[in-house]
């Protein structure tokens, strides 16, 4: 099986900096990645060089995942996605490994971000990472049998979990003599109003101060990636809505863009601009939910209502376009499901006038309030280096002073044509994250304003019927359209064999889709890089020395969405 359509004609510009690149396979993949295939014995050397060589400077580990190719000689493949913020290049490292000895050395010592991503790969693909400090299952229960994403794991398999055992970290039972205060263990979640989703935090308190914490996730795990492998490419779109359900439009658009890239097609200009408008509205909603919840958690309830009022109005716009409010399923591969309603422009302009006053109200109400500042300033602060090491992206990274925004760094959907600023703060604490999100809502409104002024006419979905369903009027009347309709539904979209990683700027950060196709109508493998997965793995380490109420203030300022975290 071929897994990529490489550009072998031009030598890769980065190849000469990689140690021993003469006998490594270094190519430029079709999605712009420098692709290195390396044996596991040399993996750590290559990864270290990728991070430490100034010419390579890959300071952000985006994703680690496993792919199963039962037909290949070496069955498994571990795939690392890296990027350099300063240089802008992206690197993919592939490590083929044998079935009878599925292990690779851990990258945790190079990027801390590898922590949970490697645990996930172990959990779902059964690949061991030697030297990993805490290689336990992460998304499924400890008692789960097998590895769900392996191709020989039957997706129809159901079994009842009978063990009631809950996870208890080792350090809970450890005796600690140094602490003279009363030490106790508390448990927050998984069903707790302040966790805003089903996740569990176990914390050890010394008096009132948290001295150690660990998180357990996976309560909302539904193995979305396995489900995708049993359905067509188009049918994955409703699943993506359930990743970050506060901004479902962005997920669908990101997925559609990735598949369009593999198909080599592009959505019509009108669809692209509508996608921008609705994605930015979704971003505003997401930030509104996050800030509303943060403020509720520190005791400022009014703001929650001020933010939910415009949110309902945006939902009304989305519903009049797509028919659904929360899970919109509006994006399609090759464009959008339908033409926007006739009053779309009026509705957007109404919202443009309606939203700013609520943002300003919240700004006036709390931004300079001493109680709020006292609760959030210096709380959960993280340095830019640490944030990058943990794989942070999005508003949380920008709050540390790193102006990394994919809409600027790698523009898609014509974002290069819009005039907007990337908000950054310098302190990296909860207060900075609040300020960055508040400003991002204003910047999103700026983008929408420019987009609606230049909304082009024309169709909203491509007329390439290899990808998009023909219009219904033709299906009812024309034989050819009917045949296309049947073929697309029964066989699915035939995505050419290969793989691609495409990322968009989600509301929480870089939302990446790594897609592998074998040329059939169903995805061979879909890996989502959820932004809050990387952010949340640093959370237990942020808690050191904080109080329990601070832990809640930090959690909500990170905007952890369980649907995306657990997939």
């Amino acid at each position: 099986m071929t897994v990529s359509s490489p550009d072998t004609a031009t030598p890769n510009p980065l190849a000469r900096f990689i140690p021993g690149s003469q006998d490594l396979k270094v190519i430029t993949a079709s999605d712009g990645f420098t692709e290195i295939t390396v044996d596991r014995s040399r993996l750590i050397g290559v990864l270290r060089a990728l991070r430490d060589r100034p010419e390579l400077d890959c300071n952000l580990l985006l994703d680690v995942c496993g792919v199963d190719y039962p037909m290949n000689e070496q069955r498994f493949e571990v795939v690392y996605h890296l990027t350099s913020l300063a240089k802008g290049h992206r690197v993919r490292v592939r490590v083929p490994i044998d079935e009878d000895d599925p292990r690779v050395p851990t990258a945790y010592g190079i990027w801390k971000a590898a922590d949970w991503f490697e645990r996930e790969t172990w959990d779902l693909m059964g690949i061991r990472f030697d030297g990993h400090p805490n290689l336990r299952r992460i998304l499924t229960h400890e008692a789960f049998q097998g590895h769900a994403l392996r191709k020989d794991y039957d997706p129809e398999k159901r079994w009842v979990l009978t063990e009631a055992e809950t996870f208890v970290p080792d350090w809970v039972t450890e005796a600690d003599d140094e602490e003279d205060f009363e030490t106790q263990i508390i448990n927050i979640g998984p069903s707790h109003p302040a966790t805003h989703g089903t996740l569990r935090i176990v914390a050890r308190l010394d008096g009132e101060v948290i001295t150690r914490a660990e998180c357990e996730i996976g309560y909302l795990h539904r193995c979305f990636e396995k489900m995708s492998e049993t359905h067509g490419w188009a049918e994955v779109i409703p699943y993506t809505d359930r990743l970050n359900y506060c901004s479902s439009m962005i997920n669908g658009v990101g997925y559609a863009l990735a598949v369009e890239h593999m198909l080599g097609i592009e959505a019509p200009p009108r669809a692209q601009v509508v996608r921008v408008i609705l994605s930015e509205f979704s971003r505003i909603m997401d930030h509104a939910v996050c800030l509303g919840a943060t403020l509720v958690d520190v005791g400022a309830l009014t703001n929650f209502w001020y933010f939910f009022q415009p949110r309902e109005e945006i939902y009304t716009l989305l519903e009049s376009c797509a028919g659904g409010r929360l899970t919109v399923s509006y994006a399609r591969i090759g464009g959008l499901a339908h033409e926007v309603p006739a009053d779309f422009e009026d509705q957007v302009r109404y919202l443009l006038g309606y939203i700013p006053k609520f943002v300003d109200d919240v700004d006036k109400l709390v931004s300079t309030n001493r109680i709020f500042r006292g609760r959030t300033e210096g709380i959960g602060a993280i340095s830019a280096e640490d944030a990058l090491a943990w794989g942070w992206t999005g508003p949380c990274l920008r709050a540390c002073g790193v102006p990394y925004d994919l809409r600027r760094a790698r523009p898609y959907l014509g974002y290069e044509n819009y005039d907007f600023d990337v908000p950054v703060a310098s302190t990296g604490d909860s207060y900075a994250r609040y300020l960055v999100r508040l400003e991002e809502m204003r910047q999103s409104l700026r983008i929408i304003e420019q987009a609606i002024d230049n909304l082009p006419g024309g169709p909203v979905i491509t007329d390439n019927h290899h990808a998009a369903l023909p219009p219904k009027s033709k299906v009812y009347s024309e034989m050819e359209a009917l045949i296309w309709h049947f073929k697309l539904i029964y066989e699915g979209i035939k995505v050419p064999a290969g793989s691609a990683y495409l990322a968009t700027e989600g509301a929480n950060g870089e939302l990446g889709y790594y897609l592998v196709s074998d040329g059939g109508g169903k995805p061979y493998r879909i890996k989502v890089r959820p932004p809050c997965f990387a952010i949340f793995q640093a959370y237990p380490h942020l808690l050191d020395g904080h109080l329990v109420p601070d832990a809640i203030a930090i959690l909500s300022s990170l905007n952890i969405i369980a649907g995306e975290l657990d997939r």
Partner: protein
Amino acid sequence: MRPVTTVNVDRPRRGLGEWIYLGPIVKGLAVTLRHFLRNFFGQRDVATIQYPEEVRQYSERMRGRHILTTKEDGSLRCVACYMCETACPADCITIVAEEDPEATVEWEKLPVSFEIDLLRCVFCGFCVDACPKQALVMSRKHDFVFTTREEAIVGIDELKQKGPIEEQDLGYRPYY
């Protein structure tokens, strides 16, 4: 490519006003008082509605409970082609087909049973998009109650259109 223009949003603490609470508190009270007075006396900008006496008007595209449309003679338009079942991302549609005994042409199919598990259904509308006969559309009805899981699996009797199509509170359907 445009250069990345950034805007710094840091807000260092300023002056005595912030320190003694008073300024920001008065400013905050002004905001809430404005909302209160406007909602109490002036234009009622109240976001809440008195549900269930008052219901929100949804758009014509609202994806709600499915309707199996009928022909003029009252028989189902559905020809049991399994397109909706295939396109369903939630695998909630089950169709059993047989030959139509009253068909005017030979080998015409019709569904003996057409079941949708409304608890599995995610209301994405892909079945409506997939239907080549406009036999399956959606209404705007979205609030239904079941007391058992079995009750949530609805068949032809529950789904079949009752009365003329115009009176059906139609939601998501083709021609959009």
